[in-house]
C-alpha cells in the first residue's frame, strides 16, 4: 500500500488551498492504538475517494466532551473556545469525525459558543461517497457473514443517526441481524458520560458485559460499531466471554475498507 498522505490545515492553507472537509480525528483516534487503526482506515478511504481533506494535527485538542459530561463546564468551554478559534481561523465549513462524542459536541454545543460547522459522522460521509460512486464495494467479501450493529448513544439516541450505519452494512451484501435492543432502545456500552476514565460504581455486572451478551445472543461473526469507545468496550466484552476467536469487533469504516479492497 502506498504511503498515507495526510495534509494538515496549516500546510494546505500555506499552499493557498482549502479542503473539501476537515477530518476531526479526536483524542481516541489520535492516541488509542485500536482507534488509530480506524483513523488510518478512514484517511485511506478519503484518499481513495479523492476527497480533498485535511486534519488539524497538532493544533487539534479535546472537544471537551468528557469534561462537560462530568460536570466540568469551565474546562469544556476553555476547550471549546480554543478549538473554535482555530477552526474559525481556518474558515472551516465542513467537519467529519469518526467519534460520535466529538460529533455531538461540535454539532450541538459549539454553535452557541460561536462555532458553526456542518458536522458529519463518518458513516454519513461514507454513505454519501458510496451513493455518489466515489467509493465502491465489491460484493462477496462478507457473503454469508452475520453482522450486527451496536448503536452508539451519542450517534443514535442523542442525534437520531440510525440509518447511515445500517445502510452501509446493507451495501456490504452480508447478513444483517438486529440485536433485541437496538436503535432508540439500544443499550449503552458503558463508556459514555466520562465513564471511560473511571472504574464503574459498585454493581452486579459491568455494562459492557451486559451489552456484549446482547450482541452474542444473535451469534454474529462481526459486531459493527461507529464509535471508538464502544469499540473498546465491546472488544473487552468479547474477550471476557472468550469469543475473540469467533467474533470480531470492527468499525464500519474498516468494513467498508475491507469490501473496497483497500
Amino acid at each position: 500500500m502506498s504511503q498515507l498522505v495526510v495534509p494538515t490545515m496549516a500546510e494546505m492553507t500555506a499552499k493557498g488551498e482549502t479542503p473539501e472537509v476537515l477530518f476531526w480525528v479526536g483524542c481516541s483516534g489520535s492516541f488509542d492504538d485500536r482507534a488509530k487503526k480506524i483513523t488510518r482506515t478512514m484517511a485511506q478511504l478519503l484518499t481513495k475517494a479523492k476527497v480533498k481533506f485535511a486534519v488539524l494535527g497538532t493544533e487539534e485538542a479535546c472537544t471537551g466532551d468528557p469534561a462537560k459530561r462530568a460536570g466540568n463546564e469551565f474546562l469544556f468551554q476553555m476547550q471549546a473556545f480554543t478549538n473554535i478559534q482555530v477552526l474559525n481561523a481556518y474558515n472551516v465549513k465542513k467537519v467529519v469525525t469518526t467519534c460520535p462524542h466529538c460529533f455531538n459536541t461540535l454539532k450541538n454545543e459549539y454553535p452557541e459558543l460561536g462555532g458553526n460547522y456542518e458536522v458529519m459522522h463518518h458513516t454519513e460521509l461514507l454513505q454519501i461517497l458510496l451513493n455518489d460512486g466515489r467509493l465502491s464495494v465489491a460484493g462477496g467479501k462478507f457473503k454469508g457473514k452475520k453482522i450486527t450493529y451496536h448503536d452508539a448513544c451519542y450517534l443514535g439516541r442523542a442525534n437520531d443517526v440510525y440509518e447511515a450505519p445500517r445502510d452501509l452494512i446493507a451495501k456490504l451484501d452480508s447478513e444483517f441481524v438486529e440485536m433485541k435492543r437496538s436503535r432508540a432502545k439500544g443499550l449503552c456500552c458503558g463508556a459514555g458520560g466520562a465513564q471511560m476514565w473511571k472504574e464503574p460504581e459498585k454493581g452486579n455486572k459491568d455494562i459492557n458485559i451486559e451489552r456484549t451478551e446482547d450482541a452474542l445472543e444473535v451469534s454474529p461473526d462481526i459486531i459493527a460499531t461507529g464509535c471508538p469507545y464502544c469499540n473498546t468496550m465491546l472488544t473487552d466484552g468479547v474477550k471476557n466471554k472468550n469469543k475473540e476467536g469467533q467474533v470480531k469487533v470492527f468499525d464500519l469504516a474498516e468494513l467498508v475498507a475491507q469490501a473496497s479492497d483497500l
Partner: protein
Amino acid sequence: MQYLPNVLFAVLLAVTAVLFAKQASKIRRNILLGRDLDRSDNPKLRWKTMFMVALGQSKMVKRPVAGLLHIVVYAGFVIINIEVIEILIDGLFSTHRVLLFMGAFYDFLIGSFEILAILVLVACLIFLIRRNVLKIKRFWSREMTSWPRSDANLILITEVLLMSAFLLMNASDSILQERMVEHFSKAGAFPISSFFVPLFDGMSTDSLIFMERFCWWFHIVGIFAFINYLPISKHFHIILAFPNVYYSNLEKLGRFSNIGAVTNEVKLMMDPTATPPPADGAPQTFGAKDIQDLTWKSIMDGYTCTECGRCSAVCPANQTGKLLSPRKIMMDVRDRAEEVGKNIDKHGKDFNDGKMLVNDYITAEELWACTTCNACTDACPVNNDPLAVIVELRRYLVMEKSEAPKELNNMFTNIENNGAPWQFPMSDRLNWAKEEQ
C-alpha cells in the same frame, strides 16, 4: 330539610374546589422556585408534541400491554367524567338525569359510559394483579418504598370502587325505572349494569332508592376526594403531563446546556481586554445543590413523574445493579421540593433546614454511575429529563466542591495540560499518520 342534600352537595363542591386550588397553587409556587428557562419557542411543534405524547400517549404504547391498558383507563376516565357534568347539575338542583332530553343520544352516552366503566374496572384489576401478584420488577425496586406502592394501589382501588358504584347505581336506577317510581324517569341504556340487576331482585323499592342514592353519593364524593388526593400523589400526572410535555426539550438529546455565566468568565480569561458583562444580582451557584438551582422544568418533571419506572428499566447503570435509578432522581426532586415548600409555609421564605438535594437525597455514588446515555429521557412517557438533573448536580460537585472522583480529576488535569484526556502530548497527535497499519 328538603334542600339539605343540595346544600350539602354545594358545600362539598366548594370545599373541594377551594382545597384543590390551594394545593395546586402551592405546587405552582414550588415549581417556580426553580431557575428561569425559556421554553416558549416553537409553539407549533410544542402543541404537536403535546398532542402526540400527552394526549395520544405515543410513548406509552412502546410497552404494548401496559400501554393499551393505560389508554383504556385514561380514555375511560376522561370520557366517563362527562357524566360528572350531569351529576353536578343533578346534585345542585335536585334534578334526576337532567340531560335525558337528549333522547337517543343520551342512551348512547350512558351505554358507552357503562362499557367504558367495565373496561376501566377490568384494566385496573389487571394493573393491581401486575403490581401485587405478578410483582413486575420495576414496581418493586429500591425507591418503591411503601408509600409509592400504596399510592399506586390506592388509586387503582379507588378507580375500581368508583366504577363499581357507577354501575351499581345504574343497575338500581334501571329497576326503579322499570317499577315506574316517581322521579326515576325512563332514561339511558344499560348494556352492562343490566347484568347486575338480578343481584337486586326482590329488593324493596325503598332499599333500591337507598342503594341508588348511596352509590350516587359514593361516586361523587369519591371523585371529590380523589381530586384532592391528586396533588399529593403521583397521579397528579393526569394534569401536569400536558404542560410538562408542552414544555419538553425539543433539542437533540445529546445537546447539553452551556452555562452562560461560565461563557462570560472564560471569555474574560481568554481575552483580558474584554469588558465583563454587568453582573445581574447575586452570583449564581454553578450547577445545583438544591431544587432552587434546578430549572423550573426539572421541578415540574418531579411533580409529573408517574413513578412508572420505564426510565430505570432501560438505564444501563440501574440494570447492572448500580445504585443509580433515574426514577429515584425524579422522585427525590419532588420530595425535596415538597419539603422546601413546607419549610416556606412554616418558617418563611428564607428558612434553611440545613439539607440539600445533593447528598441528603441523591448521593455522589448515584450521580457518578450515569453514562449520560439518554435512555431514560427517551423512555419517559411524559418527557421527563432525569439526565438534566444529574448533570446539574455533577456540575455542583465538580465546580463548587471539587469533589469529582479521583480518576476524573486526572482526566481533567490531562485535558488542561495537554489537550487530551490521557497523558499524551499534543505534539504527538499526528503520529498515527506515520505509523504502519
